[in-house]
């Protein structure tokens, strides 16, 4: 455990009395002052991790450490952690000022200090002058900010955010992404953000944990996870992707539908069965004779920035293509891509093996 570690999970499991297991032997360490995101579909265990850190529930097995101290049985009201809830959980009988002051009043802090700190917190979230308003008078985005102010005013070491943006409309959500990221950097506190929205995760995080069915599938920076997903689940969950089975013929050669293509991966067993990911934006539309393979355009959607083409190759595999130019539905087009666009995923590879394999590419002088 390094000195910078603030939270660490050691083989933590959580199951309920009815037998449902929501977390299976999860271990990880979080560093001080970073923005972490727990990303996964509903029921993957991300909120469970958050509630374990907050202290609302206790782990069935394993240990949780906070600043090196075991906190398995420390009740929620004695932890230096504050939460921004999904429904904000603002107290409707108190006004904005009193909501933010709630934690300070419980600590019996003097009235002048309370006033100063609450106003500071409100200033931090751009709500100066809103103290006397009732919660019912605030819009969704403003309530969001009150909830954040209420969490930061207590000066906790960690701030937990449980899908706080899910109730906002798209424009406000994007705005709040910028604000949250900026707020985290100004405060320098550890943020742990839970979401099922991969765009939010990619935009804000220092590090993302992708969870599925109570396991951590992959962790890493947004770029790593997007560019090098470990398996089908991660590739599918993060961004749009074409995932297709293939065979690693030899180093730097992979075959799709029996057709060989140049790639940048090596060190796998010859003729190993693998999954291949090619992102839709890495596919380039060209004429039939210039393309590496030929597909038929089945349908097309205008997405604003680009057209999203749904195409099928001769073997019946679907290929999503993001193209700046419009195509004709029913027409045959060629698709082109760079060797780097092919990303290889071994079946059932563990995260350690995967990281080691990627590392070995870097050491190889022949690469690229």
């Amino acid at each position, binding site marked *: 455990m390094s000195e910078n570690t603030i939270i660490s999970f050691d083989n933590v499991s959580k199951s309920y009395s009815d037998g449902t297991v929501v977390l299976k032997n999860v271990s990880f360490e979080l560093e001080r002052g970073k923005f972490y995101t727990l990303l996964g579909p509903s029921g993957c265990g991300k909120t469970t991790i958050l509630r374990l850190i*907050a*202290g*609302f529930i206790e782990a069935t097995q394993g240990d949780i450490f906070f600043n090196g101290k075991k906190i398995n049985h420390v*009740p*929620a*009201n*004695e932890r230096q*952690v*504050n*939460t921004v*809830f*999904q*429904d904000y*959980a*603002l*107290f*409707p*009988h*108190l006004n904005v000022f009193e909501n933010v002051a*709630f*934690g300070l*009043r*419980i*600590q019996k802090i003097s009235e002048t200090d309370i006033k100063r700190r609450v106003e500071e917190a409100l200033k931090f979230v751009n709500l100066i002058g809103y103290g006397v308003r*009732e919660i*019912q*008078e605030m819009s969704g985005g403003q309530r969001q900010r009150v909830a954040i102010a*209420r969490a930061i005013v*207590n000066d906790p070491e960690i701030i937990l955010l449980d899908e706080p943006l899910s109730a906002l409309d798209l424009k406000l959500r994007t705005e709040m992404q910028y604000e949250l990221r900026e707020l985290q950097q100004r405060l320098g506190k550890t943020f742990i953000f839970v979401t099922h929205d991969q765009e939010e995760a990619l935009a804000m995080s220092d590090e993302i944990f992708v969870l599925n069915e109570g396991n951590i599938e992959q962790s890493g920076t947004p770029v790593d996870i997007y560019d090098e997903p470990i398996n089908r689940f991660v590739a599918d969950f993060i961004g749009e992707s074409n995932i297709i089975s293939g065979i690693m013929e030899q180093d730097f050669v992979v075959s799709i539908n029996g057709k060989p293509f140049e790639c940048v991966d090596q060190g796998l067993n010859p003729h190993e069965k693998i999954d291949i990911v090619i992102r839709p934006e890495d596919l380039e539309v060209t004429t039939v004779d210039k393309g590496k393979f030929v597909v038929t355009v089945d349908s097309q959607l205008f997405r604003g920035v680009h057209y999203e083409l749904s195409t099928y190759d001769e073997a019946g595999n679907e290929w999503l293509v993001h193209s700046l130019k419009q195509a004709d539905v029913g027409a045959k087009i060629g698709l082109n891509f760079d060797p780097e666009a092919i990303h290889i995923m071994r079946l059932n590879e563990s995260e350690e093996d995967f990281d080691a394999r990627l590392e070995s590419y870097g050491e190889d002088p022949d690469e690229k």
Partner: protein
Amino acid sequence: MEKLSKTSKLYLTFVMVVLYAPIFFLIFYSFNSGGSMTNFKSFTLTHYKAIFEDDRLMVILINTIIVALLSALLSTVIGTLGAIGIKSIRNRKFRNTILSMNNVLIVSPDVIIGASFLILFTMVGIKLGFLSVLLAHIAFSIPIVVIMVLPKLNEMSNSLIDAAKDLGASKRDILTRVILPYIKPGIFAGFFMALTYSLDDFAVTFFVTGNGFSTLSVEIYSMARAGVSLTINALSGLVFFVTIILVLGYHFLTLRKTKGVRN
């Protein structure tokens, strides 16, 4: 709201007239200077004056109000804590059983409740009078308070409790700073209901009251049995007005609350 058709308006008016006619008839004759309810002679307030000049009646009135206020207050405290207790029961089956037992008490006939209290009090040896009436009123008001408070508790999101814990609140803080303020409207509603039930109650009081202690409804009943006197009309009229004022008061209280929410 959708506009009502002519027939439904007519029907509603008819129902209201049928419901209120006897009361208005009764109140109307309370102003009659003649001694009976058959012909109206002229307007007078003597019957009302008679009430306030009758010391015995005044004592009964004060008794009624004291019993109502005390029983409403105590049953509100007990019922609110009970509702919080019921809400915190994890086992659903057990919780529903308790809730059903609570509801049975509300719907069971007053006569049975009154009779059973009479048997209980005589067995335990509580003297029939002020204390027995008060205890009985508290007992039948508690389920009403529970029923009024529970919806508010159910409406409260669990994340509010989590949030309070998260901000460092102890169990006591959670109760006094979050739960009680949140369910305050329900508590007030329960208090008012308990108050009106206690003021209204005839059957239970009739059973458990003893010599020398009486409440208005029991007194009106015995006066009516004794013979026709327009003082009864005047007294009933007063009770009716007080009830109306209570209902209006409650109405404006809730109106202010919902207005606050809408803004």
